């Protein structure tokens, strides 16, 4: 099965994709060198004493990862529920993960697992929407739906927060998640998608880097030429509402992005030491985690790391045996690296999908190997950083993992927690272009255990 597909066999439209094409090659080598020298002379902003504004890295496991095979093992359940894996002890006494979460178990003192978030949207379209926006879909939608009725976390964050150096405020890597769009906030707050693979030597961000074969000298020449031929009169009076003004703003931001050493450096995972790169895992997902850390350092407030293929209707055990360790060790490396750099205090890392999986293992007709189906009555969400108490488990499911029974929490509680961490009031009211008032989150109560 193609990892970017889910059970409906559909891939998302490549909306606003910008990624692809190598970083090394052309680039703005000379120009960047000059700028780098200039940057060194100026005081280092990172050393300022002011608290860095909060960023969020959301690791989105599309399809809905099983809670049994991740953070909510049920060793006492019957075999048809328990599955093939054993629980393992973590660094924290009394806290157990599934055996494939070894690296995360090793840093459990930094982690908080919430085992009791649940909702009632058992298909991908609706589940994605609920967990990606904090709002249920307004009308029932199907499994294959890619819908947006409410702005996503990332779009709201980009809308509410300024980002330095011309960088967009919302990145989605390597693709947009299903309901990750801006809805009524407008395309300006759509995710900036970096779809290319940073583990490749040729990685570079399309449209932010010059096209292959264009030297920076020639680019600067073009830029001068553009200035020369751009003779369309602008309206001096702001009341005249010249739409060309916005283009001028964005063109300038585009130039800034293309020629800003800080912005370009944020994408330059190649400048990391071999040791660091190895630590994150020499694969696409691992290096995307590294890219996310660099974007956080550059001041980007929201990064979604999208990883598809967790819709395990079949082959669930080989999937977790083969793919989970790679993924979770990269996430563990990301959290540890953020901690080492003093960034974890201001960065919230969350990992989740749209729902959990059915307790009872089943084999769908036509499939050789068993799996688990969609299950929104329970899911496990991982939190780290930003004041979240490490080494804790919030809530619980029943002994067979059917339903959240202790500290039952909603997607609204989840959304409100995230917005509070970002300093955004979840009770805020937005007005849609139709004038309809819309609460950012209908229930603005965060998960209080995470807010200490």
């Amino acid at each position, binding site marked *: 099965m193609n990892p970017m597909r889910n059970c409906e066999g559909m891939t998302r439209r490549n*909306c606003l994709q910008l990624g692809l094409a190598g970083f090394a090659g052309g680039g703005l080598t000379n120009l960047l060198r000059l700028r780098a020298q200039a940057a060194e002379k100026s005081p280092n902003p990172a050393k300022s004493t002011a608290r860095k504004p909060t960023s969020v890295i959301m690791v989105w496991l599309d399809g809905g990862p099983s809670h049994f095979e991740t953070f909510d093992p049920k060793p006492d359940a019957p075999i048809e529920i328990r599955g093939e894996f054993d629980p393992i002890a973590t660094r924290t006494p009394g806290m157990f993960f599934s055996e494939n979460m070894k690296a995360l178990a090793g840093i459990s003192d930094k982690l908080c697992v919430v085992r009791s978030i649940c909702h009632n949207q058992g298909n991908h379209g609706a589940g994605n929407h609920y967990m990606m926006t904090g709002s249920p879909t307004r009308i029932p939608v199907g499994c294959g739906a890619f819908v947006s009725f409410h702005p996503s976390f990332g779009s709201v964050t980009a809308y509410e927060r300024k980002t330095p150096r011309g960088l967009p405020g919302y990145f989605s890597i390597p693709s947009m998640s299903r309901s990750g769009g801006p809805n009524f906030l407008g395309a300006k707050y759509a995710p900036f998608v970096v779809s290319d693979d940073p583990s490749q030597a040729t990685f570079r961000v399309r449209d932010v880097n010059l096209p292959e074969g264009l030297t920076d000298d020639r680019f600067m020449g073009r830029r001068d030429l553009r200035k020369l031929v751009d003779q369309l009169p602008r309206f001096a009076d702001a*009341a005249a509402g010249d739409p060309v003004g916005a283009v001028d703003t964005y063109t300038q*931001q585009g130039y800034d992005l293309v020629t800003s050493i800080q912005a370009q450096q944020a994408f330059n995972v190649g400048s990391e030491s071999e040791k660091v790169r190895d630590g994150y895992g020499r694969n696409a997902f691992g290096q995307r985690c590294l890219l996310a850390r660099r974007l956080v350092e550059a001041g980007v407030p929201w990064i979604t790391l999208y990883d598809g293929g967790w819709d395990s209707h079949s082959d669930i055990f080989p999937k977790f045996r083969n793919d989970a360790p790679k993924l979770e060790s990269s996430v563990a490396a990301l959290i540890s690296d953020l901690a080492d750099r003093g960034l974890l205090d201001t960065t919230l890392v969350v990992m989740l999908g749209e729902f959990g999986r059915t307790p009872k293992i089943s084999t769908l007709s036509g499939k050789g190997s068993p799996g688990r189906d969609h299950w929104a009555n329970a899911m496990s969400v991982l939190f780290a950083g930003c004041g979240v108490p490490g080494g804790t488990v919030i809530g619980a499911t029943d002994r067979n993992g059917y339903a959240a029974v202790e500290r039952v929490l909603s997607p609204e509680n989840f959304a409100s927690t995230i917005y509070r961490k970002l300093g955004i009031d979840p009770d805020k009211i937005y007005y849609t272009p139709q004038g309809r008032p819309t609460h950012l989150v209908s229930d603005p109560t965060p998960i209080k255990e995470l807010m200490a």
Partner: protein
Amino acid sequence: MPRSASWSLTAVWVIALASAAVALVPASVDAASPAAVPLPATHRDAVPAATSAVNFELDVMPILTVAGCNSGPCHGKSRGQNGFQLSLLGFDADFDFNAIVKQARGRRVQPSAPEQSLLLLKAAGIVPHGGGVKLPAESENYATLKRWIASGMPRSQATDPKLVGIEVAPRDRILPAKSREQLKVTAKYSDGSKRDVTLLTAYQSNESAVAAIDAAGLVTAGALPGETAIMARYMNHIAVFNVAVPLAGKVDKDIYASLPRRNFIDELVWKRLERLGIVPSEVCDDATFLRRAHLDVIGTLPTADEARKFLADTSPDKRAKLVDALLARPEYADHWANKWADLLRPNPYRVGIKATVVYDQWIRDAFRTNKPYDRFVADLVASRGSTFRNGATVLYRDRRSPEEVTTMVCQLFLGVRLDCARCHHHPFEVWGQDDFFGTAAYFSRVGYKGTGISAPISGSEEFIYTRTEGTVKHPLTGENVPPKPLFGSAPVKDDEDPRAAFTRWMTSPENSYFAQVAVNRIWTEIMGRGIVEPVDDIRATNPPSNPELINALAREFRAQKFDIKQLLRTILTSHVYELSALPNPRNNWDTKNYSRHYRQRLRAETLLDAVCEVTGVPESFAAMPPNSRAVELWTHRVQNLFLDSFGRPDPNQDPPCERLAESTLVQSLHLMNAPSLHDKVTSDKGLAARLLKQDAAPDEWIEEMYLSVYCRYPTTAERNAAAALVPADRTKQRQFAEDLLWALLNTPEFMFKN
């Protein structure tokens, strides 16, 4: 207005009702009112008649509404607030009465100690209230609520007068900057009585910067000129005050008298401008007109040769001749069909690929044959047959319930947004659930045969037919609702498809909405701003910027038998259409009276097609024949980064028809650095390569590029500046030509219709 005045007026009201006061006393024990709670006899009997002349519907609900208690962000939202829910803006009196009197074990109201009622404790902020202090304990409204509770929470009786409407005085004014005007709102009742409800009315200015209004109805004009509407809402009734704040200083009347009047459009626009003291811009030059008309009529740039020919033509009527020639071009159909496809286009993953293609072709055919607009709509709304043969039926394959069709048809073809009225009374309009379901009933007999939706393939054929019966139910009463249009009458004849009756009503001369929203859409496409904005939101509280103009255009459209090309000809040959985009000191603030042409960024497909035409390198699309143009695509699901970046509708969004007209960072970056664009500019088959091969002098190819991209000759200064930069080394000239082409394509002069 001082507060005390309102009190005395309330007192007048009590006296006016004195004759009915007897009936008011037993209040809420009316058996016909199911939500009413029988109260202990002691409560009722203890209350003297004179003070109980306050009832829930006429006195209490207006207070809850004006204080915002039942608004969307507070207790009016569907989950209520902290367990207390009211109907949105008070559309359901029974529900609200029940919530206040009966729920929470009755502790919200305490007739024996009214001031201890939770309703008052909360509203006055005596106990903590998330919404803040809404009714201070010393206020008039607080006193009214207290009196109502003390008198045993009476409800309005069947014999009581009913609220029938409100009036605002004055209705419109031209206000000098920073001046003030007090509005007075009067409620009218079924017994002919009136009541001043100025202080119980909620006000909202559509543009507070132009004219703001406070809670007491005092309007304050802003410092800058402009126009806006102010809405006054008392219960479910709306009245509108229109205000214009003209630019200070006098304009010579002769200026308007001497302006050309080619048709009624000019006459009506000048009239409006004169009223507001706005002076229109100059006429645009030939090159601007040429480019503008091409983009508006056929969505295609003129070639360099076409530009040369037009600019050299000295005949006085060359602009009108150009308009005629463009209307006859085949590109017209695709360009205008594409606009309608935005509104109708279904998701192929939902309705199936074949159905989507057949629908797309049906729309294009209508524009190819210049099908009269009323026929176009009637064929669509009353469509029957196979989704594989009659594309119009795919509307019903896509929208499968009477409710869905109602929302879509009313918004598209009447400019009436009924969506709100499906669940609650439209907050800014007269429409309620009765109107919604009365309209939906016309679509209750649409039948389906064959294979329905089976996403994501949905590949099968389906047949749409008219069933012999079918009903819709009112969600509150549960009763069948008979077909009833929004206004007027549209009886369904025996053996007739109710949809036929509905289309007859829609397209009849008595229905002003139908032609208005159509001309408004077309006008907006050309002029960059709707006379009504948003284009499909026609209502009293969203008045047109020029009512006479939209009416005249609608009349003309009907008189011309809904001929879209003829309407376009009328608009494009007006003097107003030819105005320059450049503002002057007396019209630079005008953004809705058409005193200048409003710049528009080219839509995604037009822009991509223009890039392909100018560079001479076509785009390759999946699921399309080679050399297809973007405007010919049958679905937005054909992958293309350029079109996504420039805001074609995203089929994943709800509603899917939103098209982005704004500019974004992504767009600037895409034009600047996209490899596909770079390839087009530097292609060996491209414009730069072609021009340089012809051994032309730099001066000639610089001119050719300006004509191709900007549709004008370079000025002498531009020509010299560019020529001075051309490298002497001929081998380096092509690269320079490519860079010049890139530079031209990256400017607003290319991206915008000026």
